[in-house]
């Protein structure tokens, strides 16, 4: 095994970490499901650790496969009045806005 910069020894993902991640991901988890997820995530990360065999010190990260620069367009409005279309699939709305649970007391 080659030792390199980003060496990251496999660390067990514990229940506490899973719960923290689920908060970040905004997914509520039952205790039982969290335990199962911890097991699954550990087996997946064990598999992912293989990347640490490689020395990538002098490798540029590949961020986009399409080697093009982003295109500019004229700063003009191209869509018609689409408020209705945008609101159409909203689970809760009034005439003009999306409606969410009260945020400010």
């Amino acid at each position, binding site marked *: 095994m080659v030792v390199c910069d980003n060496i990251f020894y496999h660390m067990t993902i514990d229940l506490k970490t899973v719960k923290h991640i689920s908060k970040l991901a905004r997914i509520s988890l039952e205790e039982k499901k969290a335990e199962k997820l911890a097991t699954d*995530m550990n087996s997946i990360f064990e598999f992912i650790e293989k990347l640490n065999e490689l020395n990538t010190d002098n490798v540029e*990260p590949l961020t986009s496969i399409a080697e093009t620069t982003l295109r500019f367009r004229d700063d003009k409005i191209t869509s018609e009045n689409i408020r209705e279309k945008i609101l159409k699939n909203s689970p809760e709305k009034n005439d003009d806005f999306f409606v969410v649970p009260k945020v400010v007391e």
Partner: protein
Amino acid sequence: MSEITSLTLYELIKNIKEKKISSNEAAKSFVDRADKSKKINAYVTENFENCLKLSKEFDDKPNFDLKLPGIPIAVKDLFCTYEVRTTAGSNILNNFVPTYESTVTQNIWNEGGILLGKLNCDEFAMGSSNETSFFGNVQNPIAKDLVPGGSSGGSSAALAANLTPVTIGTDTGGSIRQPASFTGTVGLKPTYGSCSRYGIVAFASSLDQAGPMSKDVKDSSILLEVISSFDKKDSTSIDFKRNNYSSELTRNIKGLKIGIPKEYRVDGMPDEIEKLWKKGIEYAKDCGAEIIDISLPHTSYALPTYYIVAPAEASSNLARYDGVKYGLRSSGKNLIDMYEKTRSEGFGEEVKRRVMIGTYVLSSGYYDAYYLKAQKVRQLIKRDFDQAYNKVDAILTPSTPSSAFKIGEKSNDPVSMYLNDIFTVPVNLAGLPGISIPAGVDKNNYPLGLQIIGKPFDEQTVLNIAYSMEEKINYKNNITDWWMK
């Protein structure tokens, strides 16, 4: 004449143009067959009545100059279709009815295609067996209780069961080629940037690509010609000169150099896959190609790289499902609680798993160790292919490390499920075109596929090699319509 539903796309177009079959007759045949094929569970949403109506309208005012004149076509339920429900196989989009059309499907309708309906798939295209769909398993028409592959499992099953003349899928890590291989059909993933991603429910944006699935290679060339286009609405769409893939299709591949990468001979690969590959090499030689041994040294790092990059991008893309703008909303005591309950009830287990992995690898303190590392290895994988293409015109490999497996066989072990994509994932990471063609059967008579990988934007060579080998292989699916009995 054989039954309408068993015709290839090319034959169906020919018959319609010669007025031997009307568009409405074709539509009726596919609708009738679908009604007798509910057990396959290929459809999430049927558009049958509308299809019959539109086919009649086509017959009243036919335009035979179109590339798909009045052809009924079912598509994967990952493409947004105007005023037709689009679910991505997820509960969270159960009631989503798009107010716009994806570019790829619009291209099909512009050439005379008519929507038959929306086909089942793994939830948000995350899966290799169609078992993660909220709308249930899909049966592989090859044999009962066999998975059709995934994520485009409804598409491959519908095609093999003759429920649609051709179809389109999407491929992020093998989701077109693996189900094609499992069902004895043809599936092509084009070069990244060839087909617009506009209006496709996003999974991993640097990898996602739409492509044709068909009964033979010629049909894929016809459909690719229709769906591939430069599109301003997709910032990674590439403006390159597209071939007339179907008219430029040729079996003359004499002198082409085809590479055989030794790293694809993986541990534990069944003998029958090895044999299939050797047979494929012989067929390629028979076609006049020159076989050259090559090395793609970072192949074994592709899957671990993919399972960082794809979940990371997925966790970002799926952040939009918040119960506010569209889709499912669960009630909660405050805004955060509403988000968490909505996403918990709306997403299935595999999607949650991947969102969690993605969130973890992007979270503070882990980004460099995982995501940045994976992007660097992705560079090495791409470089392997760049170097190989200095020596060869295309690469030949098996499509999958095994044939189709039984429903339930791998659903409890995510890593063993992920291994299905071992030969297809590197192609997505490098953004290359790849096709799977049926090439033989295993000991159970289940189909096995071979994959041809090409240079960027060189779909024509990929298609030509496939077209040429297809003739030598002469594979025929033997499907008994068991689900109708």
